[in-house]
């Protein structure tokens, strides 16, 4: 899964996007890792993340199997509480917390280092600030995977605002057409940026879609008097 690697945008566009995730390695340290994933997320909540998620079901926004028709007039922008997300973890895989400031991310990394769960912890985001925060937290990074962007038939890619939104789900579950529709709906005043971000977030099955960044991008696309 390069689910968080190839988000689209320039360096200035990722100041509010740091994804810290923990995962086990099959056959190496997966036995008994479920309580560690839960503790990881509980610890993250102390640092006010934008959202948290677990890989099997996603974040606090979810599709519903039996939606009540009345929901068309009164739908919350969150379907679950963070505590419910944590409670649901039943498989030993991956959990993630998304932060919108370096300070919050760094504070969390200090706690992560102290906890010493023995599982792999990664941070997806701007590599230089992550490196600096890790150093200050007393962590020496082990490996880095750099995104080199896209090649090939680039003429098949959608326009920039759409790519910035849709690539926040690296599994491509957030369709460019849905992102474009949400941009239009926000411009038309049919939905708020927060509502539009929640619609898109429900398609990101592992829940690493950053609703704060999405809201900012949608706000920027709205031609309001500034």
């Amino acid at each position, binding site marked *: 899964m390069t689910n968080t690697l190839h988000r689209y945008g320039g360096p200035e566009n990722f100041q509010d996007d740091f994804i810290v995730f923990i995962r086990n390695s099959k056959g190496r340290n997966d036995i008994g890792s479920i309580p560690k994933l839960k503790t990881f997320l509980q610890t993250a909540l102390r640092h006010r993340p934008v959202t948290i998620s677990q890989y099997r079901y996603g974040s606090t926004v979810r599709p519903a199997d039996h939606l009540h028709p009345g929901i068309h007039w009164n739908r919350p922008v969150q379907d679950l509480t963070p505590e419910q997300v944590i409670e649901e973890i039943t498989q030993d895989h991956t959990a993630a917390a998304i932060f919108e400031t370096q300070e919050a991310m760094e504070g969390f990394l200090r706690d992560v280092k102290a906890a010493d769960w023995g599982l792999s912890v990664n941070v997806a985001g701007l590599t230089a600030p992550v490196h600096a925060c890790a150093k200050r937290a007393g962590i020496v990074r082990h490996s880095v995977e750099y995104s080199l962007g896209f090649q090939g038939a680039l003429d098949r890619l959608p326009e920039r605002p759409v790519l910035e939104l849709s690539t926040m789900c690296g599994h491509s579950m957030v369709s460019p057409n849905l992102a474009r529709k*949400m941009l239009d709906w926000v411009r038309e005043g049919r939905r708020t940026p927060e509502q539009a971000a929640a619609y898109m977030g429900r398609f990101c099955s592992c829940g690493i879609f950053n609703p704060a960044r999405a809201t900012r991008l949608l706000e920027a696309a709205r031609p309001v008097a500034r």
Partner: protein
Amino acid sequence: MRIDSHKCVACGNCLAVCPVSAIYIDPGIRRATVDLDECVECYACHNRMSKEHLNPTLVRTIRGFLRLLRIRFDPEPDVCPTSAFAPEELTWPRSIRRAFSDPCVPHESTGVYGRGTEEVKTNDVTNRVGSGEVGFTVEFGRPAVGARFREVQAVTMALARIGAVFEKNNPVTAVMPDPSTGAINPDVLDEKVLSAIVEVKTPQAMLPAVLRTIKEVAATLDTVVSLGVSVRCDPNGENTVEGALADEGYRVFRGKTNLGLGRLMNLEVQPEAAAVRP
């Protein structure tokens, strides 16, 4: 994936949510229909849309009445009002589409969810990319274009020719009868998937050759390629790859940083279970 035409009310919500634009309203039957050749079986429509289970006749009547009055109902955009999606049992080779497209099912070859590979996310316990080496993740079809394995093969064979070694625990390598050639099982060459990640590893000295090969072949494809380069850091957390990438014209600023906090623990926790696991 199919859509039950008896249930579909042609609301059009599912058209926008399909990552590869494989759903359309068939003007002949006035129902949403899936272009099966383009569909990658990602299940985004079936798994991620909310469902209302409303009576199709009732919904069509209301929609028809509103349309007569030129009134447009403004429904939630992520809802299938009548739960019209009808997944089919997939057989080989079509079943490979779902394995490479739906992140909610694990790849049989590796047992890993998502795109089926751990990459360097667990490099601190796997040592998949060691000191002096460079790992490449070449992802085809992403974002939201999709790729046929024939296009993937064009690159894998080119990489094999220059001596790149394919990662064993990777779903694309698993469909190569002989990874030393880079050739992919002919059964699946025309199958379309949402994303396929090829992983190779070389000495760092080969970095320019691999990058140039990928760029050259990618330019001939009708899909997009997302490229990632991974490296093991020195004891101070530094590496020399950023400079080498800059020399090749790549300005890197974003990536995934493995903090090195993982360690082997199954043997400590449960020696017998660990011994029998792959």
